[in-house]
């Protein structure tokens, strides 16, 4: 009971902090747009972790689905219909379906090899976005679209110029996806994912169809990722080919590991630290990459279980 209360109060604290963010962030040197970016990238890191932390499958090409989501959303807004919700739908479907198709090809691979193949295939989409400049804007990225006001039937919310309204829009989207993730992880399917992570061979002996489960988990993770990517296009009113690049995949993985990949909320914490650090360091030096690189090395050497894992260890000791 005590444990349960503790968990509930932490959960409540997280949501209160997120809901009140536009009010407290200016006092600690933040701004609302930074909060929105943290939410979206955090959602991406949580999607990567859905696969990495809870199924134990190491995909290093997830930026492809993130970027496809962004391009899908941007292209729809630019060429088809000026509707934010349709844009989100198009981006999510584009990234999720492509990811699912590719996943079917890869599910039998494991470990390092799986990582290599996902990186290489992820780069395909980077090259397409880079080369097909008549459609995607090539190196310059896709410009010329804007997120549109939301029509809720009884009211219209201007999320374009009002950054606080947009933050809450993103927060609602974030909450829906996070709830879906939590629901899946609590379901029998989610428990099976954990069983595969812990001991694949034993799970196979129990009659679990490993490939099928991994494929479903991979595809779900791609859909979540593509949704985060679509939101990211709305954040910037811009889709960047670098969002598809494998270095972006690396950033998502490091956010997940930095926060703690065995924890549901770990990747969000990782995203907070990563995004704020990147924002700060890139404002003081042009060689910010070196600091990001050092962060990677330090995390691997000293915090392999992430900040949350580290805190827990300290408490036990």
């Amino acid at each position: 009971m005590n444990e349960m209360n503790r968990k509930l109060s932490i959960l409540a604290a997280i949501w209160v902090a997120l809901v009140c963010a536009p009010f407290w962030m200016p006092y600690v040197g933040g701004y609302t747009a930074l909060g929105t970016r943290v939410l979206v990238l955090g959602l991406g890191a949580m999607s990567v972790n859905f696969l990495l932390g809870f199924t134990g499958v190491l995909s290093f090409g997830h930026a492809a689905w993130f970027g496809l989501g962004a391009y899908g959303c941007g292209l729809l807004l630019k060429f088809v219909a000026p509707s934010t919700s349709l844009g989100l739908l198009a981006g999510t479907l584009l990234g999720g379906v492509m990811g699912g198709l590719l996943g079917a090809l890869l599910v039998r691979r494991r470990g390092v090899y799986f990582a290599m193949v996902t990186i290489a295939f992820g780069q395909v989409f980077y090259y397409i976005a880079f080369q097909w400049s008549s459609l995607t804007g090539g190196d310059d990225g896709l410009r010329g679209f804007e997120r549109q006001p939301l029509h809720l039937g009884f009211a219209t919310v201007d999320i374009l110029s009002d950054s606080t309204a947009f933050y809450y829009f993103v927060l609602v989207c974030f909450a829906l996806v996070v709830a879906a993730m939590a629901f899946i992880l609590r379901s029998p399917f989610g428990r099976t994912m954990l069983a595969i992570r812990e001991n694949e061979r034993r799970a196979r002996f129990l009659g679990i169809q490993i490939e099928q489960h991994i494929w479903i988990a991979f595809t779900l993770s791609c859909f979540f990722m593509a949704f985060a990517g679509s939101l990211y296009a709305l954040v910037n009113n811009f889709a960047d080919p670098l969002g598809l690049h494998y270095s972006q995949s690396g950033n998502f993985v490091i956010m997940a590991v930095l926060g703690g990949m065995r924890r549901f909320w770990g990747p969000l914490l990782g995203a907070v630290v990563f995004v704020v650090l990147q924002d700060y360091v890139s404002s003081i030096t042009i060689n910010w990459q070196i600091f990001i690189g050092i962060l990677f090395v330090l995390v691997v050497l000293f915090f392999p279980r992430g900040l949350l894992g580290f805190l827990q260890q300290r408490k036990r000791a």
Partner: protein
Amino acid sequence: MTQLLLFNITNGLMIGAFYVLMALGLSLILNLSGVINFAHGGFLVIGGYIAYTLEPYLGFWGALVASPFLTAIIGLAVERVLISRVYGRDPLYSLLLTFGLAYILEAGTRMIWGAQGKPFTIPEFLAKPISSEFFFITGYRLFMVLIVAVVVTGLFSFLRLTRIGIRIRAGTLDLETVAGLGVNVRALRSLNFAVGIFIAGLSGVLAGGQLGLEPTMGAGLLMPSFIAIIVGGVGSLAGTLVGGLLIGVASGLTAVFYPSASEAVIYVLMAVVLLTRPRGLFGEEGMLT
């Protein structure tokens, strides 16, 4: 048309030769230590820039010889201090570590030598084309092919004929048994890593002579090298060799007919190979998969 075709095939082979050098080093390290070295391109760049720094003192030939050794020493230090700590751990950590190292090496190169590209001069007699009809075959290109051939032959004979080489190959198959037989696996892995980085450094010098030096040039070679390994088959060095040349020629040929797809075609090739023969052309079932 024949000339254009020949021009692009030669071009493809040249590029393929670079992929081969890079991929062989990556493959060596992956096979023995299970580490995908994302920082490989970073070491390649360092090799090129060290040669650029040494050239005024040692000349082209001196720099060509000295730079790979210095790069290998840097690689050895990095392996001892950092990479050796993640051996045997979840591949996630070696990926992240070398990923971070790649950032550090690239940004470090930019800090030391500047973001602007640097020219790397090659001897006069190598820069000239061998004939006016085949203007695209310069002496330097022939020279590069020669070096690549020497390195590949040297590497394969090292692995077949020397005691250390045989241990490396045995370790690729079953490291535990090799350790049980009294081989110092720690030293073996370090040496193996250094050999891989030596080759990377050498390709950096060669690439610098052909294309000039830029801090980002290594990252661009990394993906094709990955694909060379996947197409050739993980665990097989001969496969890596064939894979590298194959994707080089494929992208060279595509450049004739449909230039904008010349990079995409190597991914198509990879997809076809994975669909029809998931272990790669020369790969053995079960190795690292």
